[in-house]
């Protein structure tokens, strides 16, 4: 009944030690965030599928944990993850959230990219942009298929651009045309004299065209830009070859381009356009030559130059393949 004081002290010490250890563990593992958890603010991210994402998974920005998944739910025809973001972390409006499946046995997390510096900050409760990514399983099942597709596509691209033994490729053709254009252009200049004569002789339809002094400049500029486009296309080709090599080496860096069906479709469409361009180039050698023989051609040339302008403007944002496609489509 009466305890000796030593026993009481031992039990007390033992208990305090235990509590201290629990506290230390708590501080180490949760950084004291369990009970006084930073409430933060919430963002909504909609996906086709949340895959293996579950409540409590990390939200990371550039690999640093900035919050966690507070809730997962179905909202109509899509799945939504409610993300709890630490209150001191700002997310830019153009930042994109993707679901990352981590390794073979790891769990998923939501990765948010930094976004651009200039973009406004997302307010609490806002919806964040998302991008679908294939999870590991899908990748595994599709990778063979994809690499086959990719190889075929890029092989086609290569032959389209460079040509093979039988046929010259697009680039050769473009080069050739540009070389010829120099001649054609001088011919154009020479013919302008004829046009002046014709205008003097009262053949008025072309008059307006000739009064429009910008035509010549535009033509020159257009050709220069076309040339630049060709250089860029060549640069792209080098990149594409590298790409193919990388895919062949089995690197996963192709990322979205490889896995995204839309990108693949774009690629296909572009290739088709390139082929078309190449055919048309082969047939249409005389098009520039016919410029002066047909009134309507002049009008078309003007429209075309505008289109080419636009296309070249777009070049920077849309990337090389589509740019070439647009240029080619616009031209022919």
């Amino acid at each position: 009944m009466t305890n000796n004081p030593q026993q009481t002290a031992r039990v007390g010490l033992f208990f305090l030690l235990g509590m201290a250890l629990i506290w230390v563990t708590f501080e180490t593992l949760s950084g004291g965030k369990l009970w006084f958890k930073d409430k933060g603010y919430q963002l909504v991210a909609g996906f086709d599928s949340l895959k293996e994402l579950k409540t409590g998974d990390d939200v990371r920005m550039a690999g640093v944990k900035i919050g966690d998944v507070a809730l997962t739910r179905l909202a109509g025809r899509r799945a939504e993850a409610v993300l709890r973001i630490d209150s001191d972390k700002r997310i830019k409006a153009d930042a994109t959230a993707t679901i990352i499946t981590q390794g073979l046995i790891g769990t998923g997390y939501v990765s948010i990219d930094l976004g651009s510096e200039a973009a406004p900050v997302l307010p609490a409760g806002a919806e964040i942009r998302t991008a679908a990514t294939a999870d590991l399983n899908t990748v595994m099942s599709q990778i063979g298929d994809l690499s086959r597709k990719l190889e075929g596509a890029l092989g086609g691209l290569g032959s389209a651009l460079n040509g093979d033994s039988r046929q010259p490729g697009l680039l050769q053709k473009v080069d050739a045309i540009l070389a010829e254009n120099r001649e054609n252009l001088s011919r154009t200049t020479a013919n302008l004299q004829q046009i002046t004569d014709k205008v003097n002789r009262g053949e008025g339809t072309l008059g307006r065209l000739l009064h429009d002094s910008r035509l010549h400049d535009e033509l020159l500029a257009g050709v220069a830009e076309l040339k630049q486009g060709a250089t860029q296309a060549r640069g792209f080709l080098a990149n594409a070859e590298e790409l193919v090599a990388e895919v062949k080496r089995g690197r996963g860096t192709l990322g979205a381009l490889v896995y995204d069906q839309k990108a693949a479709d774009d690629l296909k469409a572009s290739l088709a356009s390139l082929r078309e361009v190449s055919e048309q180039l082969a047939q249409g050698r005389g098009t520039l030559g016919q410029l002066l023989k047909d009134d309507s051609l002049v009008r078309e040339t003007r429209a075309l130059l505008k289109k080419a302008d636009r296309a070249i403007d777009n070049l920077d944002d849309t990337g090389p393949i589509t740019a070439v496609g647009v240029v080619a489509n616009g031209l022919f």
Partner: protein
Amino acid sequence: MTARLLAWLPNPILQVLHGTGSALFLLVRSLRHLPSLPRQFGRFIEQCHLIGYTTMPIVGILSFFIGSVLALQSGHAGENVGYKQFIGALVGLTMARELGPVMAAVLLAGRVGSAIAAELASMKVYQEVDALETMNIPPERMLVLPRLAAVLTMMPVLTIMADLVGWFGGAIVAQYTHFISIEPASYFANLRQYMDFSDVLNGLIKAEIFGFTVVLVCCHIGLNTRGGPREIGASVTRAVVTSLILILVLDFFVTKALM
């Protein structure tokens, strides 16, 4: 209706139901005396000493080796698969969520549960319990309540020690085994990356449930011993076996419930 149903049940099931019911009644009768707990501080400390302090060494030794062997086995299995770097998380989570509480409870059953059953069975057989009753001292108040309070106080302490010792055991093995050789810093970094205090808390809750059940069951079986001294041994065996079964069965359901 119920009586009819009960009569149809096979004997072992009937016994399980009867045991569960009367153990719960014992719990209720004990909890009725909760206000008397402060007066029984001495007994509480005595039981804390037995349940916590004297059980610590064996819990420490066992969890050290459990942690070590966890690291060893997972390191061995993961060597080719390439999840070697996850040993920290693996040992950490397994110890905290599963083996820490279960080992502490199993040792509690073996070391303390058996002692409780033996003591109470002997008190029952030698009519000490009857004597208490004639003295108008409820046995639940004096014999059961302080033990239940003590186990609730000591289980978290035992479990956190089991967890930590297990983690360190794993770290040492991970560092010095040639086919693993993971630095403690990486081991613990991995452990911390994949663990949250809620994992540890989860284990502590499990341990409380196990410990409480073990003590309640052992008290119940001890106090329900009938017959002569021979029955003391039988009661001890029954108490420990029942405790072990209950720990593992409860483990499943509690784990599921806490997920």
